[in-house]
């Protein structure tokens, strides 16, 4: 049984590293391709859920929004962000 466990261990970890490696690779490829062939609008994902303009950089806001969505499992929504 331990022998099987070693196989599972090996194949499992290799597969996971392989897949996540390929995810990084193909993701970058995808971003490159989209930037190259379809880079029309400056980043505006989902204006509906977008809060009003603040001094905080776009990326941070995107992360905050997604974090709140996760944390509240879709119930919460950021409507206002203020820098301290």
């Amino acid at each position, binding site marked *: *049984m*331990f022998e*099987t*466990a070693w*196989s*599972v*261990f090996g*194949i*499992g*970890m290799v*597969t*996971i*590293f*392989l*897949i*996540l*490696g*390929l*995810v*990084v690779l*193909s*993701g*970058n490829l*995808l*971003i*490159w391709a*989209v*930037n190259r062939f*379809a*880079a*029309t*609008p*400056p*980043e*505006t*994902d*989902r204006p509906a859920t977008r809060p009003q303009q603040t001094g905080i950089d776009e*990326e*941070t806001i*995107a*992360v*905050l*929004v*997604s*974090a709140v*969505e*996760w*944390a509240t*499992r*879709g119930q919460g929504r950021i409507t206002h962000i203020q820098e301290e």
Partner: protein
Amino acid sequence: MDFLRQLYDMTALGDLAVQPASLLMLAVAFFLLYLGIGKKYEPLLLVPIAFGMLLANFPGGGMDIVDQEVAKKMGLLELASEYGIMNLLYYSLIKTGLLPPIIFMGVGAMTDFGPMLRNLRLAFFGAAAQIGIFTVLFLAIWMDFTLPQAGALAIIGGADGPTAIYTAIRLAPELLGPIAIAAYSYMALVPVIIPFVVRLTTTKKELRINMKEQDKLFPTSRPIRNMRLVKVLFPLVLGTLVAMLVPSSVPLVGMLLFGNLIKEIGSTTERLHSAAAGPIMNTATIFLGLCVGATMTAETFLQAQTLKIVVAGFLAFAISVAGGIMAVKVYNLFARKKINPLIGATGLSAVPMASRVANELALKEDPTNHLLQYAMASNISGVIGSAVAAGVLLSMLSQYL
């Protein structure tokens, strides 16, 4: 006298006298309710699980799950008429493996791959943090579990509820209850487990590595010029990759990505997205919880196995966290652009709790070190990592059933 006898026979008191262990189970259920309601530990799942456990352990209530050997011989209608609605729900929704993929569809419909796409490199560390799964496999075998049972137990280290439940249903339905409880409890305890492991394995200096400063020092990431399109295409690319390499994870990963796709497409499929993330997800959560809880009767729960699962499950969690951290440390040995080891810890998954905990730990050492967005990258990739791990376990261990 005869009257009192009949009255007494109708009550559960006689059964309780014969089977006093039920009282202990009721106590466990009340304790879990306390954790879910009072302590707010994963209430969305602990409350239904604990309530299902409560219902199942009232003697004579007829809400406990019967043995699958008994159920297998019956059709659904006969099962419902003989053993009541909880068995109908359990055998049609849970034992068939239906609800976990449905919940994964809802999870997908709530997941934003944005943070991961913005820091794709970090996704790689979602792999290392699955090592707890495969390490505890050995421990579980040593503890006398069969191979499939060991696999079901080990997946607790994936720190992902639906994945753990799906794997347990397929590999060891007899252990479903304790495995689900352990998985959700440890996910709720992430704010305790991660700091504990981090303290054992990292130095203050490492925790002060500031991801934003590193980004400024070594700017590499290209801006994404059409995020909407990338987000629509990414689930398709990811799905194809996973499906090609680990087909057995398609029911989980495929449904996750379908949910994500109908979210990212936007207004034209908004009706579908709202159903997947709302009523379908919530309904599935209620019945998954109640049914998983209902599997935990005195007979199945009060066993040495349960204790072993609790211990091994904790180890799986801890080793996964440590594995993620170690991977970052090894990476830092060779790379000029350093990564905060907390990014490795969040590879565990337990989204988004792990990321928030990591963020707080970083801020404690350096109040300007906001790494939430970086942590989310490995955090989300950890979900994929554990679904892939489940696929490997299912594919390699089903033959020993």
